[in-house]
């Protein structure tokens, strides 16, 4: 495990200056190329969805069913990750196109857009990997570092993780309702009802679409469509879960305490985003299917930069990190994912907190 880099105030300022300049440079060069990319992705997702739903609805044989499932899963993955997530970050707001505006875009997943924008864009992106503040760290159910409290239930966390991976869209969807507060008695029933309203509305719509409406359109073929939609959603859940868990829970991804991040400067904020994130290496198709979350470091530095630009600036970010002696956490998917699973298993056991070491340092 690598250690956190400590930089002087001057170094942090110049780090912030370099990264700000990089952002300015890219922002100034946004144009037709980026617009073409996102439009191509939208068309690809739409085409894939039509093909997938068509094959499920009108096919007869198992092969067309399997192809249909993967086509629909591909459509949902593209739509959720490369389009939905990125558009809702405002990456394409500069295009002034109402259909790609972060103010209105809604995605093909049970998570309501207003919940997502709060829990993800606002809380997770600002408080990345700060224990107790970043509710995405372990999603309130997994212990991934010694600093988190252990309880006997933690022993079962590999099982919890498996369930979360399978039902990932539901985990994401109820995340911002903050059920934990309700169970601890810090939220009234009335407030809970109010907070869950967008979720209930969105979930009803999604369930109706995938498990009532489209199966009904297929008449006697309804079991084929229903099962196909279920499997497509499952594939999407497993894939997005694996990619997202590799973003901040790999072996070398650091965590931070509330006290050490108090009154952060811009430079410290950038430094935390780099050290709390990890990249995945792969081909172009892999980056697109991960919504460019494979460039998690660049995404956390510049959440509203059109995602394909992350791949372009990655060598420069890596070079900047090298100069400042910051560990640039990047490896292949399997090695990163394996290190995440390792953490889930290791910290299921009552590992000792490192407070003593921290105090000594």
């Amino acid at each position: 495990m690598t250690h956190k880099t400590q930089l002087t105030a001057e170094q942090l300022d110049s780090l912030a200056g370099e990264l700000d300049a990089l952002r300015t440079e890219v922002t100034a060069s946004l144009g037709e190329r980026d617009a073409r990319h996102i439009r191509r992705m939208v068309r690809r997702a739409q085409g894939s969805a039509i093909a997938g739903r068509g094959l499920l609805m009108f096919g007869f044989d198992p092969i067309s069913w399997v192809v249909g499932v993967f086509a629909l899963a591909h459509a949902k993955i593209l739509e959720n990750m490369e389009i939905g997530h990125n558009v809702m970050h405002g990456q394409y707001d500069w295009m002034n196109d109402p259909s790609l505006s972060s103010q209105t875009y809604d995605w093909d997943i049970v998570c309501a857009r207003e919940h997502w924008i709060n829990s993800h864009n606002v809380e997770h992106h600002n408080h990345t990997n700060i224990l107790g503040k970043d509710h995405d760290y372990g999603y309130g159910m997994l212990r991934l570092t010694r600093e988190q409290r252990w309880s006997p239930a933690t022993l079962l966390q590999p099982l919890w993780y498996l369930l979360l991976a399978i039902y990932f869209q539901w985990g994401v969807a109820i995340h911002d309702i903050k059920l934990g507060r309700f169970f601890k008695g810090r939220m009234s029933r009335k407030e809970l009802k109010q907070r869950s309203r967008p979720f209930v509305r969105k979930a009803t719509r999604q369930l109706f679409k995938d498990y009532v409406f489209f199966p009904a359109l297929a008449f006697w073929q309804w079991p084929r469509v229903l099962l196909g939609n279920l499997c497509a959603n499952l594939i999407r859940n497993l894939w997005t879960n694996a990619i997202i868990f590799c973003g901040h829970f790999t072996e070398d991804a650091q965590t931070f305490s509330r006290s050490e991040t108090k009154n952060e400067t811009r430079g410290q904020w950038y430094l935390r985003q780099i050290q709390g994130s990890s990249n995945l290496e792969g081909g172009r198709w892999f980056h697109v299917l991960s919504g460019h979350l494979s460039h998690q470091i660049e995404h956390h530095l510049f959440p509203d930069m059109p995602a394909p630009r992350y791949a372009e600036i990655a060598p420069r970010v890596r070079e900047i990190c090298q100069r400042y002696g910051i560990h640039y956490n990047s490896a292949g998917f399997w090695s990163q994912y394996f290190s995440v699973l390792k953490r889930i298993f290791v910290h299921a056991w009552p590992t000792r907190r490192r407070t003593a070491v921290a105090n000594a340092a």
Partner: protein
Amino acid sequence: MTTAAPTARTPTRTLLVDAIRPLSDVDAWNRLLAWINPLWSANEIRARVVRRTEESADTLSLWLRPNRHWRGHRAGQHVVLGVEIDGVLCRRVFSLSNSPRSGELLRLTIQRQAGGGVTDWLHRHARVGLIVGLSAADGDFVLPDPAPQRLLLIAGGSGITPMMAMLQQLADQAFAGEIFLLQLCRRTDQRLFAGELADLAQRLPGLSVHVHASAGSGRLAAERIPELVPDPASFHTMLCGPESLMNDVATLWAGLGLAAQLDMERFAAPRPPSLPGPEKTIQAAESEHMFTQFPGLTLLEAAEAAGLKPSFGCRAGLCRTCLCLKRSGTTRNLLTGLSSTRPDEWIQLCVSVAESDLELSL
């Protein structure tokens, strides 16, 4: 290239429409339709440029054939034109410069403005075959019905465009009344539609055209207009041109007690007063941002200054792209001058200023 029509999307979605998504996803259908034929759309007005004519060194006309969503216009009305420039959907308002005859092409006459932007792009890139987005025709700058027997048209520069539509319509109706057209331009070689006006004069016996070029004889002061026009009080006046000209004439006409007989078309939104006043705090509820509106800024500018990126179009209060739900607070519309305290009201950010602290659905 997709060129969405520059209309604001309706915020209210019925439950049914929601329930059968994605089949009810209009954007998705539009993409499919545009893939088959770029003019096709389920709800957007799109048009193809079928002819381009140069009117002067810095002004051109585009002849457009709209798709079946075009519902016609009245002479004097304007449209919002949308084109994609380097990935950015840009919109700008233009008056239609021909009269609405069924089955005919639409004509937009476009003067190149300094500093780039849509007009500059159109001058450089508008070719036959270009697909553009259009809004429905809009605007109250139309001839009274029935047309008054004495009409005074004051047109400054490209302000002649809506007048051309009106004159064509009058010629089509064989209008027998008197029309005094005062056409102001910088230089005589920049004068628009000289040939066409001569043709119209053949069909409109009552039309007299008075041209004033400021390069030769200096800028025409508004006070001199009554000297040129005999008995202005007997005319119904239509006015379109640069902001300063319109302000001068409007003030003069008000002084003469003729305000009721004056119609005018503004393309630039009036600026909010920059008088020192208390700053207003605006809560953007959706993005959980707070920002301050300083005097002299519109809500749109204040939101942009705070790093928010609301959709916008013409920035002149015409196209309603920047429509935003005001949850609470008092806003004033700069176009109408009216204040409203109603909660849950749709406001146009580009022409609204806060008169109290606000909560916006942004």
